[in-house]
């Protein structure tokens, strides 16, 4: 491994990434702590958007756009529909957290401590040179349809199954025998 650039003199890309990362983590925290259901969904949009920015910084353009399209576009919309269909209250609700909260906080903090420790310990010296274009749609597309075509097809079957499953579960006029 070649010598690693100092942590004390960050590049511009790193600064941007850290800022975006901070936004993502802060938004995620708000998602899990906010007292308003709809706000949680909206903070999720912010979090996912920031993550898409992170992907861009990491030169994964195609993934970033897919993230924006599917997560920010489809998934959050789906979640909002879910909220509406379950008649989630608009505005503050006092009981969004279960009684399990202290235990959850403890476990989450322990997880964070463990993961951060291990990750810092393991990848202190890892450094990646960013070369633009590696994550372009062309490169990824050729990789998918050359090397990953079989998993891709399998995945399409999975999607179909999930589609049918969701329909069956949602419709009330289909009864099990």
């Amino acid at each position: 491994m070649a010598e690693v650039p100092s942590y004390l003199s960050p590049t511009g890309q790193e600064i941007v990434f850290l800022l975006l990362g901070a936004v993502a983590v802060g938004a995620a925290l708000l998602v899990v702590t906010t007292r308003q259901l709809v706000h949680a969904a909206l903070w999720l949009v912010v979090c996912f958007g920031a993550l898409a920015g992170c992907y861009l910084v990491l030169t994964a353009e195609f993934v970033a756009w897919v993230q924006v399209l599917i997560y920010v576009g489809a998934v959050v919309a789906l979640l909002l529909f879910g909220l509406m269909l379950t008649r989630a209250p608009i505005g503050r609700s006092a009981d969004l957290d279960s009684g399990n909260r202290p235990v959850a906080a403890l476990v989450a903090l322990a997880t964070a401590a463990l993961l951060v420790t291990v990750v810092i310990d393991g990848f202190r010296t890892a450094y990646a040179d960013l070369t633009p274009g590696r994550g372009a749609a062309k490169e990824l597309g050729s990789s998918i349809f050359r090397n990953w075509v079989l998993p891709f097809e399998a995945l399409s079957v999975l999607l179909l199954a999930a589609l049918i499953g969701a329909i069956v579960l949602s419709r009330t006029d289909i009864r099990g025998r």
Partner: protein
Amino acid sequence: MHIVYPAVVSALLFSIGVYGVLARRNTILVLMSVELMLNAVNLNLVAFDVWLRDRLHSGQVLTLFVIVIAAAELGVGLAIVLGVYRNRRSVDLDGMRDLADPGTEPAGIPGDAAAESATTPVAAEAAARSGEAKP
């Protein structure tokens, strides 16, 4: 780019997701937390793909797959949540306790009474179970 940065961000996101899964009461919020955890994994995949310069782009391709699977999971998950809501008029996770031990409710320990009529609590539990099974 130091790989530690995306790795740490991803670890923090994952932990936040864990917290959300464990602490939130509303099932849809739990699903959101699950999405957070999945995204943490995605960030890791992308970062390590960039670092390792994988010729097959496996990291990014897997990220795409995860996104797809997450979408599918969310679809099915929401369908289940809607089904639960239809049945129970509520999507509170800690309200669904059909798996609980039925003997939890009487707080007192059946001591001497149990010694004298050993069959009674068992019969009571059996009755409680069959009673819950009926609806």
